[in-house]
């Protein structure tokens, strides 16, 4: 006899109903929670300042603002960048670095006297061109794409840089 007993049928029905309704509730919630994975990363160009703000040979801290932040983002809509002016003009004119140490993301600080970026967390050190001078960082400072438009310097927004994104 291959017949399904009434009791077995009812228990399977109960399990199937519960699983089905959990799925119907769970899928939207899961999609809602995982939404950050599906949103496009930022890549607008945002203004940093006038080119004349950056004397040749110097490295300056600038801040850029997320062009479309959440209304309650407050200060977190700002991001700091280190801008190094290398030449008068041309493709070697600027280097724009993320402030995040390539080790674990703490903000590096420029020491004008020593011409080094120093990280306060685990002691990472970088030269003025972003290459590693000492400590645990596995790679040079992350650089941002930049453009000169008229007399303005623009940089491209990007996600939090991680070692893998490179």
């Amino acid at each position, binding site marked *: 006899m291959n017949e399904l007993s009434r009791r077995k049928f009812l228990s399977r029905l109960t399990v199937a109903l519960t699983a089905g309704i959990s799925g119907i509730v769970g899928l939207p919630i899961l999609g809602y929670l995982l939404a950050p*994975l599906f949103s496009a990363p930022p890549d607008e160009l945002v203004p940093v300042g006038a080119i004349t703000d950056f004397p040749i040979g110097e490295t300056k801290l600038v801040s850029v603002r997320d062009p479309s932040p959440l209304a309650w*983002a407050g200060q*977190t809509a700002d991001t*700091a960048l280190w801008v190094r002016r290398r030449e008068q003009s041309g493709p070697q004119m600027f280097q724009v670095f993320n402030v*995040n140490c390539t080790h674990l993301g703490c903000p590096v*600080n420029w020491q004008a006297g*020593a011409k080094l970026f120093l990280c306060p967390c685990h002691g990472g050190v970088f030269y003025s061109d972003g290459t590693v001078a000492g400590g645990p960082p596995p790679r040079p400072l992350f650089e941002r794409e930049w453009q000169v438009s008229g007399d303005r310097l623009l940089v491209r927004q990007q996600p*939090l840089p991680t070692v893998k994104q490179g």
Partner: protein
Amino acid sequence: MRWLRAIGKIPGAIATWLGERFELEDSVMAVLRHPVPRELERPVGWWYVLGSATLGIFVMQVVTGVGLAMTYVPAPNSAYDSLQFISHNATLGGVVRGMHYFGAGAMVILVLAHMTQVYLFGAFKFPREANWLTGSLLLLATLAMAFTGQLLRWDQDAFWAIVVAAEQAARAPVIGNWLATLVVAGSNVGGATLTRFYATHVFLIPAAIFGLIGMHLYLVIKRGISEPPVPGLPVDPPTYRSRYEKMLARGIPFWPDAAWRDATVAAAAVAIVVVLAALFGAPQLGKPPDPTNVVADPRPDWYFLGYFAILALIPPATESIVIIGLPLFAFVFLFLVPLLWPDGERHWSRRPAAIAAVALPLIAYASLTVAGIASPWVPKLQGGTLPASVTQSLTAPEGRGADLFVSKACFACHAIEGAGGSRGPDLSHVASRLNRDQLTARIATGGGGMPAFAGSVTPSELDDLTAFLLTRH
């Protein structure tokens, strides 16, 4: 006087009525009076109180946490201000926040102490393996609460701690960048980040903790409290339960014969936290979470400083393995403990390897914590001056060199006569180790962890620096 005696009987009558109508005799009282081994009457019973003390602190964390949530605003543009309000303006706010803060430290300490006691007493062995497994998950949950709680402080340290957490998550194989995106809830720490950590800290993890505590306590009651271990009396799974049941037949009721010790220690633990909170208040917030202020010195709370130190001290090549592998190994090992050693000797005196398994990580983590507090690997950026004894009676070039030593940040990593950083070697007597050419070469080209300074000092500055260092015999 008869009416007074009659009134005096009312509370007892109410209690009896409630007990009967709510059937408390069969539920609550039966559980409270469950039999425990008679040995717990003796002083060894004091070892069995750590779980209850943890539970007591947990209840306090729930109560103070609900209180804080009544005022805390989990929005990035307001959280910092609302915490300042709680700490300085709200009535008793500083004390409540202080209790929650010191309570968090107490949770970490007590969970680990409870676990250590259970491990050394061999109480995780058959038939109580699942008690250990639920307990291990509770340890994980406690650490997750400690970490997410620090982030809700939403000061500069908290902001950078989230960045560091995301960067660590990104080191995971294959799914690293997805994890990092979920940690910050977007492409960067921003408007969406704090609310997620808040919901995780006040809903998700606590829900898991309530469920796990329920399972943990159910198992404690069902499997019974383990008897104090006796050397030479190993756990033999086929016969253990009948032996244990015989032992319980002449046992004592948990309530009140053993429970008074639990209540005493739990009350003392809570009292200590309240006194600390009343004396010291809430921990000071750091600077506001301004991503554009790069003058930061991010540090985790004290119980994570050892892990912070590991990240600075391990060789960079092994880093991704350590960041992902070490915690993974520690927790997998934790879960395997009762599965690998379910039987055999329970007493610590017969388990020397168990003593080592407790002592070595404890010593290692304590040393790392000390290293984390000192952080000798971080260059000293606060500036300062060389002692007068070093700079007096220098010639002009040597004096210029001494100035350069400070202005070119040599000072940040190298100490002379007690002043300066400790990242690199002490240079108080460097002239007795290196001659002029060696000094010049080392400054210009660096090496051994030191940057090359050829690009940042001129040849004449290099001469002055060398001249100064040659005075350091």
